[in-house]
């Protein structure tokens, strides 16, 4: 389990260049022939320096990913948020079982009686029910399915 906890995970320190790259690349790469050169030009650095910084931020897991952010709902697949109530003594074991499912895209521990919250993404909408049933049978806990019924806003941006 690679759980990053608030207690153990230090906030990283950034150079000016890293800061600029993190802030700029969260808003999206321009879709042009030489996109990295275009962003490097905006930031006043070389394309090589941008690529090197980006690679380094990914290696250090400051960035978990760089690439297209897909809108699963727009891809015809199934997507839902689900929650489970897991007793403390079984939490690690249940985490391992839940994370083993490819359909689990994100999983967070949260401080609540419902203490495990995960996003399920499947290629076909009807696979969601199947995945939930499989998780319930693997873990022995009820899964509360909370698919989105209306989307009001999605925009992640964390300035540093």
């Amino acid at each position, binding site marked *: 389990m690679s*759980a*990053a*906890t*608030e207690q153990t*995970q230090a*906030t*990283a320190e950034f150079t000016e260049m890293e800061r600029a790259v*993190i802030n700029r690349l*969260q808003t*999206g*790469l321009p*879709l*042009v*022939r030489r996109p990295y050169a275009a962003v490097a030009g905006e930031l006043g650095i070389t*394309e090589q320096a941008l*690529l090197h910084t*980006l690679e380094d931020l*990914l290696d250090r897991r*400051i*960035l978990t*990913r*760089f*690439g*297209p*952010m897909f*809108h699963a709902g*727009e*891809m*015809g*697949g199934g997507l839902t948020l689900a*929650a489970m109530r897991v007793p403390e003594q079984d939490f690690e074991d249940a985490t391992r079982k*839940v994370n083993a499912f*490819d359909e*689990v*895209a*994100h*999983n*967070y*521990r*949260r*401080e*609540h009686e419902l203490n495990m*919250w*995960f996003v399920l*993404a499947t290629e076909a909408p009807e696979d969601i029910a199947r995945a939930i049933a499989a998780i319930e049978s693997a873990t022995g806990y009820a899964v*509360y*399915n*909370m*698919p989105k*019924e*209306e*989307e*009001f*806003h*999605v*925009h*992640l*941006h*964390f300035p*540093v």
Partner: protein
Amino acid sequence: MSISTSRSDQEYVLCELDRKLILATQGGLPLVPDPWGTLGKELGLPADEVLARFQRMQDAGVIRRVAAVPDHYRLGYRFNGMTVWDVRDDAITDMGRQVGELPFVSHCYRRPRHLPYWNYNLFAMVHGTSREEVEDKASQINDLFGDTCEGHTILYSSAILKKTGLRLRKS
């Protein structure tokens, strides 16, 4: 696979080549000066066509954007509060829109209740560098509701257990 988009009522049809591009990039875009050319070589397409397909998928909303996804803990946003609200059904669409417009709300969705156990139907994600900051933001949300909200709570995340992002399966 045919899909409908939120930006228009037209259907965008994800063809086999789009699917291949998604599969080739869901782990990440190549970190080379000409990423479209690199992908094109892999798939036997001209770089310009790869780029044009990305542009079309982004215009259709299949791709939100091509961007960096940070580990927000490592950026100092250590407090990730999922604020959940029990909002009157007849007010939720209007209230959801207002909450979604707040600059510090990163995601805002209506979700089903699970009565009697879970009575919250509006979820708004709020991030902060301290618990106080998240609570202050939650109280700004609370101010919007007036008498349309019966109760709320904040679920803080204490660990990321998995974060791989959405994946298509290679079929």
